[in-house]
C-alpha cells in the first residue's frame, strides 16, 4: 500500500510533464494535421534555456530566492521557446502548407535532427547536472521500513502544471484567440472565409505549444536536475503516445493520456522491470492504435470519398 501510494505520487509528477508536452502535439496535430516530430527537441532546447537562465540569475545576478528565480526562468523559457517555435514554423513548415502530406513530417524530422545536434555542438555532448532545488520532503505516512513522502519539487510541479492548465483552458475556451483556434481546427477554409487569419492562428498555436513545452522542460530540469542534448527523443515519443492515447486533437485527452502514461511507466518500473519500462510505454501506443485508434476522448476519424 505504501509503495503504491509513493508510486502514485511519482507517477502523477512524471505524468504532469508528459501531459504538458502532449498538449503541444495534440494542438499542432489538431490544427494542421501534422505530427510535429521536432516537438520533443523543442522541449529539450527549452530545458537548456531554462538551465542557462537559472545559472545566469543565481550566479551572475545574485538572486538568492529560488522561487523568484524559478518564476523568472519560467517566463524567459516560455518567451524564448515560443519565439524559437515561431521561427521554426516560418522556416520549415509554412512553405510546405498545402504540399503533399509527408513533406512536413520529413521537414520536422530534419528539424529534430538539427536541434539535437545544434545543442550538442553549442553546449557539448555531456550530461549537464544542475544544483538540486527544493530538496525538502513532507512525510505523509511513516512506517518502520518505508516512508511515503512528497518532495517540495513534486508539489511545485503539480502547482505549476495545474495553474498553467487552468490558464490554458481559459485561453482556449473563453478568449477570441481560442475561438479562432478551434475554428481553424474544425475547418481552416471556412474559418478563413469568416475572417479568421488562419496563418496567424497557426503561428500562435505553435507559440503556445512551445510555451507549454518550455514549462515542461523547466519542470523536467527541476525534477531530474540533469539534461543532455538527446533528452528530447524519449520524452517526445512518450508524450506523443500520451496524446494518441487520450485521442489526438483532444486537449483534455492529452492531459489524461499524459497522466496515464506517467502512471503506467512508474508502476511498471516499480512492480515489473525497470529495463522494460520504455517497451511498456511503446507497447501501449501500439495496442491503443490497434484497438482504439481514436483514443480515449478523440473523435472517430470518418473517411469520406
Amino acid at each position: 500500500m505504501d509503495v503504491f501510494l509513493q508510486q502514485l505520487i511519482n507517477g502523477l509528477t512524471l505524468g504532469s510533464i508528459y501531459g504538458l508536452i502532449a498538449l503541444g502535439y495534440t494542438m499542432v496535430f489538431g490544427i494542421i494535421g501534422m505530427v510535429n516530430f521536432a516537438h520533443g527537441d523543442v522541449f529539450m532546447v527549452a530545458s537548456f534555456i531554462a538551465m542557462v537562465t537559472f545559472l545566469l540569475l543565481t550566479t551572475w545576478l545574485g538572486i538568492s530566492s529560488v522561487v523568484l528565480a524559478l518564476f523568472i526562468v519560467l517566463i524567459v523559457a516560455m518567451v524564448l521557446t515560443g519565439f524559437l517555435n515561431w521561427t521554426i514554423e516560418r522556416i520549415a513548415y509554412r512553405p510546405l502548407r498545402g504540399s503533399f502530406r509527408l513533406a512536413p513530417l520529413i521537414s520536422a524530422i530534419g528539424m529534430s535532427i538539427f536541434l539535437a545536434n545544434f545543442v550538442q555542438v553549442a553546449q557539448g555532448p555531456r550530461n549537464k547536472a544542475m544544483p538540486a532545488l527544493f530538496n525538502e520532503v513532507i512525510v505523509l505516512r511513516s512506517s518502520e521500513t518505508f516512508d511515503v513522502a512528497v518532495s517540495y519539487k513534486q508539489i511545485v510541479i503539480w502547482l505549476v502544471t495545474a495553474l498553467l492548465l487552468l490558464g490554458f483552458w481559459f485561453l482556449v475556451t473563453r478568449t477570441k484567440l481560442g475561438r479562432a483556434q478551434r475554428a481553424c481546427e474544425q475547418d481552416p477554409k471556412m474559418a478563413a472565409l469568416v475572417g479568421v487569419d488562419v496563418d496567424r492562428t497557426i503561428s500562435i498555436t505553435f507559440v503556445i505549444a512551445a510555451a507549454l513545452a518550455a514549462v515542461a522542460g523547466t519542470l523536467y530540469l527541476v525534477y531530474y536536475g540533469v539534461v543532455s542534448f538527446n533528452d528530447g527523443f524519449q520524452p517526445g515519443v512518450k508524450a506523443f503516445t500520451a496524446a494518441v492515447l487520450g485521442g489526438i486533437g483532444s486537449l483534455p485527452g492529452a492531459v489524461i493520456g499524459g497522466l496515464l502514461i506517467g502512471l503506467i511507466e512508474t508502476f511498471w518500473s516499480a512492480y515489473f522491470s525497470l529495463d522494460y519500462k520504455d517497451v511498456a510505454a511503446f507497447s501501449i501506443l501500439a495496442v491503443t492504435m490497434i484497438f482504439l485508434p481514436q483514443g480515449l476522448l478523440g473523435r472517430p476519424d470518418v473517411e469520406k470519398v
Partner: protein
Amino acid sequence: MSEALPDRDARPDLIRALREGALAALIAFALFLPLIGFSTVQNMRNEIVLEARWQLLFTLVAVIAGIRFLSTLLLAPWAERRAAAAALTKREVPPNGVAQVWRAMAARWFAPLALGFVIVYPPLVLGLNGFQGAAKWIDNFGIQILIYVMLGWGLNIVVGLAGLLDLGYVAFYAVGAYSYALLAQNFGLSFWLLLPVSGILAAFWGIMLGFPVLRLRGDYLAIVTLAFGEIIRLVLINWVPVTGGYAGISSIPRPTFFGIPFNASDEGFAATFGLPFTPIYRTIFLYYVILALALLTAAVTVRLRRMPIGRAWEALREDEIACRSLGINTTTTKLTAFAIGAAFGGFAGAFFAARQGFISPESFTFMESAVIVAMVVLGGMGSQIGVAIAAVLMIGGTEIMRELDVLKAVFGPDFDPTQYRMLIFGAAMVAITVWRPRGLISTRQPSAFLAERKAISGTLVREGHG
C-alpha cells in the same frame, strides 16, 4: 545587366533589405543568446558554471544578418526576374527544343552510365590511389553508400510503391543483422546459407508487425511502426543473455569467397590465387556482393511493378477506398509490401553484420530509420534513380564531411568537421524538403498505361494515404 531596373526602384530595395537584415539579426540574437551566448562548463569543484561567448554570438548574428541582407537585395529580385522571364518565354519553346533533347538523353543514359561507373569503381579507385588509399574509398564511400541504396530501395517498396509510411524500417535491418550474427556464431553456418535465412526471418517479422497495423493510415501508421522499431531496439539492449545488450556481438564470422577465407593463411584467398596478401581483396569482394544485392533489389522491384501485386500496391498508394471497391484484397496487398520490403532490409542487415564483424543496438537507432525514409521521400517516392541519388548525396555528403581538412585551414586547427556532420545533415533535410517537397525526381512513370507512356507530374497525385 542591360535591362536594369529604374533607379527609383533600387532605393526602396536597399531600405527593405536593410530592414530585413536588421530583423534577421534581432531574431538570430534572441534565438542564439541562451545557447550560443553562454556555454555551460564544469569548474574544478564539479559545479556547473556559465561562460560568456560574446564574440561567437555576435559573429553568428552578423553572418545571418548579412546573408539575409544580401539575399533580399540581390537574390530575390534576380529570382523574380527569372520567373518573369520564364513565364514570358514558356510558350515559345518548340516541342523538340535543345533542352528537352538533353533532358531526354539524360533520362535515357543516366542509369546505364551510373551502373557502368559503379561496376568499374573499385579498379578505378585502386588505380588512382594504390592499395593503401583505396580501402577507405571503397569501404566508406562504396560499400557504405550501397548499403543505404539497398535499404532505400527496400523501403521504397513499402513507402514509395505501397504508400505505407514506415518509420521503423531499421527494425528489419536489425533482425537480419542479429539473425546472421547469432546463427553464424552459434551454429557455424555460412554467410551464403544465412543470407536468405535472414531475409526470410525479417520478412516474417514484417508480416508480424504488419498484421496489427493494417487498419491504420498515414501518420498513425508511421508512429506505430516507429514504436515497433523502438521496441525491437530496446529488447536488443535488455535481452543481455542472447544479444549481449549494449556490448553487442563481436567477432562475427566474415564471408568467404565461395569457401575460401580472406586471410593470410595458406588456404586464404591471396595464397590460393598466388597473389600477395592484402586486406583489400575482401573489401572489393564485399563491394561486389552488396552491389549485386542492391541490383537484385532494384530488379525485383522493377519486375514486381509489372505484376498484378505491384499494380495493386500502386493503386493502394493512390486511393485505398477505390482499391477496395475494385475488389483488391488490401490485407494481402499491404502484408506483401511489408514482407518484401522487410526481406530486403534483412538481406542488407545480414550483409552489414558480415561486413562489420561487430554489431550493437547503437547501429539500429531511430535515426537510421529517419535517414532511410528521408532518402525515399527526398529522392522522389517510387523513383528508384531518385532514391539512389538521394542516398549518394546524403551518405556520401556526410562521409565527405569527415575528409574536409580544408575547413581546418579556414576555421583554425581546433575545428572538427565531423562534429557538424549531423547538424548540416538535419539542416539540409529541411532545406531540400522546402525546396522540393516531392523529392528530386517528382515525375511519375506510370506502370500501367493506355497506348503511350506519359510522365505524370508529381503534383497531380496524392500519395501516402494508405
